């Protein structure tokens, strides 16, 4: 028991110790993240063209990073779920460490799909108009569910340890004490609580495995579902999942080494753990080699040296422009680690670290080799697509890795990185095992303690909350849809009293210049003033600009233009089309056919589509632009009379 207490102190030590080195490291990581954010802000302002991606190579480092970070996130599910199910008890000290890799890498990974959008300001469209036919929507659903699931999975075994932090760490800041007390959910550590907790963990263990596998399979389908040479592969799902586990295990090995070195955890993470993890890495590495042979040898046998597109693609990898990257991935990323991990002489901690580092770099390059050459391959007879990353992509990538390290570091400084209740209190653990698994009568338990896990009902409440969380993840799209639609509807509830008091300036010149009968409204929003009349397109286009201080501005016009009337006698546009454009509804103006659309809200680049009403009358196409409700637009339109 004395020993256990010492262990707990040892594990809690990093949570209170703060050295200059720690602050320096956090500052450096923050600086890199800040630099990346600066680069990203630049990209948002100028356009995604600041990246090196262009018409052929439309994705490059962005999607590579996304696949890589999603990949290493799989190790949490492997360590905790698969090893838990197979009763590999040696995993206990490294379970949480792997789950935090999952947590941190997922946080980083989800930034990339948003960052790579041409219109990041419109990301909400993915929730408003999701099209289930698209692999990207499957991604969205799977990754959201995985994030929620893996966070719960990380949190559940953390509860007893947070309670211990709450009880032991009384000299930390008030803010942290509050975090501990809220997150520990009033845990007391009674036997019944422990029983319920283990049951909850058991349920999550089963749930998380299919979710994790679905995530990377779906990520692989982003590629495999497209008609692209090199992506047209049926083994992409298992190939990606294996690669994900491989890179994840390599990352865990690196993290284990760093933690044992800096937090003095040698007592918990021993040579045995390194050996076991290294064996796991070797096994996955060999499976990966097997998949790689399948992926390249099968097409190679058939098409290598042929003038077909697949032949061109394969020879570009084997001895064409991409050979250095391809052979780096094969030799340094797969074969060399396999040798290091299997030769007894190099089965040392240093050897493991070198192998892990090679595997991680190799897997990043492997993803890059999947994304870029297939895109650069010309689909029609033309030159190959070119790609080289710009400093914007490099900075954002650096920020991703720094962000991953930062999240990890902060986590280890806030919560114990090794599960204390599973390792340090081995003696307690053994007593729990003796309890019959049958659930005790509720009445007995209620009196035992006031913890949230104390009664069956309260446990069920929390179970229900967890289920609700999952459901929330899957239906979040619908909820967000409703909310956003509601908000959008409200934005057009602007009413301006219509009167005949609008002032006008002389427009006699228009009469002689225009090639058709120009009209202007008799009724208009209160306070409107005709500001400018423009005649263009050889007298076939007349624009009337009205200023009005109360009507929401149309951002594509300068100053405070409240509404605009365009009149066109352009043969290109002078007859009403037979179809109804997206987002419009039919509205008749003076019995002439027309259509109108509500104001859709300002867009990011200030080129929004204002509310508009278009109608056709006597060979002239009228367009009224104003951020007003459709009914008011119609009132203005009906009052049009010749100048």
């Amino acid at each position, binding site marked *: 028991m004395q020993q256990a207490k010492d262990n707990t102190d040892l594990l809690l030590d990093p949570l209170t110790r703060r050295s200059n080195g720690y602050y320096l490291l956090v500052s450096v990581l923050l600086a890199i993240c800040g630099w990346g954010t600066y680069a990203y802000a630049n990209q948002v302002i*100028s*356009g*995604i*063209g600041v990246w090196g991606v*262009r*018409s052929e190579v*439309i*994705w490059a480092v962005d999607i590579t990073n996304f696949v890589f970070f999603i990949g290493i996130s799989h190790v949490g599910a492997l360590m905790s779920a698969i090893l838990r199910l197979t009763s590999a008890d040696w995993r206990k000290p490294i379970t949480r460490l792997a789950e935090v890799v999952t947590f941190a890498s997922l946080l980083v990974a989800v930034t990339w*799909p948003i960052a*790579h*959008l*041409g*219109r990041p300001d*419109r*990301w909400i*469209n*993915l929730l*408003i*108009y999701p*099209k289930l*036919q*698209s*692999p*990207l929507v499957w991604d*969205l659903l799977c990754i959201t569910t995985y994030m929620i699931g893996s966070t719960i999975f990380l949190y559940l075994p953390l509860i007893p340890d947070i309670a211990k932090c709450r009880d032991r760490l009384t000299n930390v800041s008030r803010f942290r004490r509050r975090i501990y007390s809220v997150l520990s959910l009033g845990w007391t550590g009674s036997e019944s609580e422990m029983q319920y907790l283990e049951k909850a963990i058991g349920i999550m263990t089963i749930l998380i495995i299919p979710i994790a596998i679905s995530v990377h399979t779906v990520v692989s389908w*982003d590629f495999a*579902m*497209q*008609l*692209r040479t090199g992506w047209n592969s049926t083994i992409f799902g298992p190939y990606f999942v294996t690669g994900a586990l491989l890179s994840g295990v390599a990352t865990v090995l690196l993290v284990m080494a760093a933690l044992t070195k800096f937090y003095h955890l040698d007592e918990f993470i021993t040579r045995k753990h390194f050996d076991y993890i290294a064996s796991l890495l070797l096994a996955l590495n060999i499976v990966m080699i097997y998949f790689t042979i399948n992926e390249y040898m099968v097409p190679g046998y058939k098409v290598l040296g042929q*003038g*077909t*597109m697949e032949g*061109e693609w394969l020879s570009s990898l084997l001895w064409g422009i991409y050979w250095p990257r391809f052979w780096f991935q094969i030799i340094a990323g797969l074969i060399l680690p396999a040798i290091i991990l299997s030769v007894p002489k190099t089965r040392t901690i240093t050897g493991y670290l070198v192998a892990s580092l090679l595997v991680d770099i190799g897997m990043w390059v492997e993803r890059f080799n999947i994304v870029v050459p297939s*895109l650069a391959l*010309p*689909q*029609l*007879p*033309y*030159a*190959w697509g*070119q790609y080289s990353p710009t400093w914007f992509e490099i900075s954002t990538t650096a920020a991703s890795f720094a962000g991953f390290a930062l999240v990890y570091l902060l986590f280890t400084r806030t919560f114990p990185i090794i599960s204390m209740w599973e390792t340090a209190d081995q003696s307690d653990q053994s007593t729990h095992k003796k309890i019959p698994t049958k659930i005790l009568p509720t009445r007995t338990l209620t009196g035992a303690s006031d913890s949230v896990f104390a009664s069956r009902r309260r446990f069920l409440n929390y179970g229900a909350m967890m289920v609700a969380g999952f459901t929330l993840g899957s239906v979040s799209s619908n909820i967000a849809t409703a909310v956003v639609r509601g908000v959008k509807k409200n934005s057009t509830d602007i009413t301006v009293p219509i009167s005949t008091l609008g002032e006008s300036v002389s427009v006699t010149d228009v009469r002689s210049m225009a090639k058709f009968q120009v009209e202007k409204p008799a009724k208009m929003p209160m306070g409107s003033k005709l500001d400018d009349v423009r005649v*263009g*397109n050889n007298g076939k*286009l007349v*624009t009337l600009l009205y200023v009005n201080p109360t009507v929401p501005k149309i951002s594509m016009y300068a100053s405070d233009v409240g509404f605009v009337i*365009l009149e066109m006698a352009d043969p*290109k*546009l002078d007859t009403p*089309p*037979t*179809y109804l*454009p*997206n*987002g419009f509804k039919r509205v008749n103006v003076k019995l002439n056919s027309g259509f109108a659309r509500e104001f859709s809200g300002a867009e990011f680049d200030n*080129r929004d*589509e204002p509310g*508009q009403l278009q109608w056709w009358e006597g060979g002239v196409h009228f367009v009224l*632009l104003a951020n007003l409700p459709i009914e008011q637009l119609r009132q203005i339109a009906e009052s049009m009379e010749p100048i």
Partner: protein
Amino acid sequence: MGLSRRQFLSIAGSAAGGAAFVSIMENLRPLTAAETIQLTSVQDASVKKWIWVIDLEKCNGCMKCTEACTVEMRVPPAWGEPQYEGYQPWIQVFGTVGSDQQAVFLPVPCQNCQNAPCVKVCPVGANYYSEDGIVLVDQLRCVGTRICMGACPYQRRFFNWFDPPVSEEEKSIPYSPDYNIPHRRGVVEKCIWCRHRVVDGKVPACVEGCAKAGMKVLWFGDAAQDAVSDGEEVVRLSQMIKNRGAYRLKEDLGTDPRVLYLPPQGGST
């Protein structure tokens, strides 16, 4: 226009391009009788079935079609891609030197697949078929994932990497997916077969440009009415296909494109 014919020939004639081109030509196959009938049969005449016939025999690579397109659609720039000079080539003319030392040219507009991979993969449904079968992009909905560009086997989609220059006149044109002006940043652009023109019974701008140059390479029409036109004369589609043997690009992918190519006489059967 900045599109120098010699320059484009020299790039296109490079080894990789040449090999790929030959492979495409090898993959082409004549349409079966059933397919010809299906393409030309009169169904519901009120629903247009736009079709494009491109006569490779007559094309000399003058690129008047690309120029007409760039003017009509106010095509945004391609932003310094080494392959493209100037503007996004919505209709692009590929060229290579054939085995008999004769130059071969291949104008490629959007193929308007009826089983379009780009429409399938769009996560927000911004790609859609108009009722007459033209693939359109709602650029107010597009979020710019670019997955449709990856999915397009003909590389006929382009992206506005920065803010395109927009004149005052363009700003005054109300945006519609049928006439996607003014152009905006961060969304996908493509040839829309000049839908704003064809619904009014006119041929696309590039067809007109080709006819004005006296080339008669591009023929546009309605398969439901079995007629194609270059803007000046009208001919029977079924006759044109039957006499020459029409091909479609990458037939084996099953995308069901609406563009038929008539091979140069030297290469046809």
